């Protein structure tokens, strides 16, 4: 076939006669009205992705029913006084597939994830409890690998797993293994870290390269055959936090941007504090491999999960000192100041793009998928 021409005169007769060339004459009843899937009244996978639907679930089901002041803060942990001290208390579930991935496994994630939820209140972690839901048929060898990995992560953090529970479900009713970890820690005096403490003028810091974990998983995902050296960044951050607080105890907000990435976390903070979070695209630390894979698949790194990074929102006068303390720590080597807090428009996160434009960083709707468009 030579040149490419659209010769309508040669179309076979059985193709329905075209409507005349103008759109006025086409049948606009062809407008599809897709069923609004979210109104189906059941839980969907999107409810678990950490974005808008998860938030809706919290606001519409859990919060109104469990209502109490501690819960309403909607931090990743609850902090409350006991005796003369303040305890931080948190729980998290891990329903990860694949169970083993470059840089870690579900066990390591489960330990570090809960340690980090404690660390985000400035707490020194004390003890962990762990509950296993095992699927019938899970190879014992895999369980042993996972448990060994958990002990390694806990020991590295100086924390003991002191109590737990085990249940088994029928084959087909679980992804091999589900792990829930619960943690308790001690919050030092003078430390008041909470998602509602961001103030206009504060600086936004991130502790290192973003989107590592999610892209490490995505690269290995079935159907995507990319050759790239990417490892999950899963790590326990409490010693990094301690170093930051030593530089200045007046850290306002700490969050680890896991599911839904920076986008999810920054929107939560913007909402809770009633401020605008302004990010500077050029300052975001990104490894070339992650950037390249994101470009190929059309993914936005702001929406990709991290497992060993934190966002800190700190007063402007303390930013440089805290940044220096982060960079001196092995987990904060590539820390950077990536934005600031403004008063308006409240409840929004937006980006100053590399070409000087602005765009909203919206709350993620569901899992980000590679696009073709």
């Amino acid at each position, binding site marked *: *076939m030579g040149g*490419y021409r659209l*010769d309508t005169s040669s179309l076979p007769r059985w193709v329905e006669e075209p409507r005349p060339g103008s*759109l006025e004459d086409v049948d606009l009843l062809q*407008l599809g009205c*897709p069923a609004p899937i979210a109104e189906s009244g059941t839980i969907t996978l999107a409810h678990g992705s950490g974005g808008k639907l998860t938030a809706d679930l919290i606001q519409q089901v859990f919060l109104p029913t469990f209502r109490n002041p501690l819960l309403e803060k909607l931090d990743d942990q609850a902090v409350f006084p006991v005796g003369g001290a303040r305890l931080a208390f948190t729980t998290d579930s891990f329903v990860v597939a694949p169970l083993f991935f470059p840089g870690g496994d579900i066990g390591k994630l489960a330990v570090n994830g809960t340690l980090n939820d404690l660390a985000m209140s400035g707490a020194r972690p004390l003890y962990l409890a762990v509950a296993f839901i095992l699927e019938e048929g899970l190879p014992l060898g895999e369980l042993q690998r996972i448990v060994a990995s958990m002990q390694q992560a806990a020991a590295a953090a100086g924390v003991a797993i002191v109590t737990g529970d085990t249940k088994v479900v029928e084959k087909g009713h679980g992804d091999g293994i589900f792990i829930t970890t619960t943690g308790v820690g001690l919050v030092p005096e003078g430390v008041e870290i909470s998602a509602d403490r961001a103030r206009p003028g504060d600086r936004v810091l991130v502790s290192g390269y973003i989107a590592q974990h999610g892209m490490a998983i995505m690269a290995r995902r079935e159907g995507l055959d990319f050759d790239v050296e990417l490892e999950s960044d899963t790590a326990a951050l409490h010693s990094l936090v301690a170093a930051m607080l030593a530089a200045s105890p007046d850290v306002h907000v700490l969050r680890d941007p896991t599911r839904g990435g920076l986008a999810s976390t920054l929107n939560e903070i913007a909402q809770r504090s009633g401020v605008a979070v302004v990010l500077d695209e050029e300052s975001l630390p990104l490894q070339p491999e992650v950037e390249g894979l994101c470009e190929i698949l059309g993914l936005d790194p702001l929406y990709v999960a991290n497992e060993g990074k934190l966002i800190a929102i700190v007063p402007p006068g303390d930013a440089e000192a805290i940044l220096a303390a982060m960079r001196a720590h092995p987990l904060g080597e590539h820390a950077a100041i990536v934005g600031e807090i403004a008063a308006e428009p409240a409840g929004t996160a937006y980006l100053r793009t590399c070409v000087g434009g602005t765009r909203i960083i919206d709350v993620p*709707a569901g899992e980000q998928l590679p696009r073709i468009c």
Partner: protein
Amino acid sequence: MKYVSEFRRGDVAKKLAAEIARLAIEPMKLMEVCGGHTHAIFKFGLPSILPPTIDLIHGPGCPVCVTPRDKVDKAILLARRPGVLITSYGDMLRVPGSASSLMMEKARGADVRMVYSPLDALRLAEQYPDKRVIFFAIGFETTAPSAAMAVLKAKAQGLANFAILSNHVLLPPMMKAILDSRDVKLDGFIGPGHVSTIIGTRPYEFVARGYGKPIVVAGFEPLDVLQSILMLARQIRDGRAAVEIEYTRVVKPEGNPVALRALGEVFEPCHARWRGMGTVPASGLRVRERYAAWDAEALYPDLEVSSEVEDPKACECGDIVRGAKKPWDCRIIGTVCTPQTPIGACMVSPEGACAAYYKYGRLQVGHKQPAAVG
């Protein structure tokens, strides 16, 4: 990243924007027809650095969201058949048909797999000889040659269990339909850079010669888009109407003859329905009869889907994709119609004008804009 980062320089963007502002004294309505351009425009926040006289109209350039509902239903019916493995690009998985989506079918136990390339689907067909592996082949002229190559490779290998469910649509006929629309007044087109890599620039000559509108074939980095808008502004200011190429590093006037040969070997033009626009004559591609053995619709002629749809009276997608209205003119955007609960074509996929606007453009800080929605 080479050939990417250099085209994202902020200092150059500023100069280009200033130059455009100098030329665009009168309002200029420019339509980009490609969803990738809609995405780029919003992702880089270009409306916030362009002068208000540049009015960017977002055309129906997203093959994902213009895939007719009944085609998605066919994919779903196929997914439900035992022994069938459906493969699809990521963004098609969530597009709703009448009552479900491929993603939901996967959750219900169907063998639905995301792939990056039609070649991945071909490999699955080799790996699972006892399954019928079907590739949901959507896209414009950019992507059709790749689907064609997959079919040609399947034939060469004698792979009988591979087939494509094709919904390819063509941009130039859609552009003609839009130009023929009485209530749309455009001053120029930002031409689709990657479609043109395949088809070259000859298919657009009717725009300049027949309708007297300039068209500049643009790349997808922010400096490409800005430079193209500048080239359009110059043509409009000079009273010219020509087909120009900004994206000279990949677009040649003759396109890609090898890709065109592959495309023409496997596909032939047909009429096609575009979700949100109705039937556009000669705007689609279907698999030629000699390749029926790899055409899912020929292999499964009995798939019962309905193309009767109730008219959602509140949906204004028809006006929006033609550029007669803006996303924020729609009464239901942000309230009833959101990315989680899409009502019409423009919101169904991330590249639809409404989805892009909702996600990125609701609040153009520092730029004159109607009140934020949602």
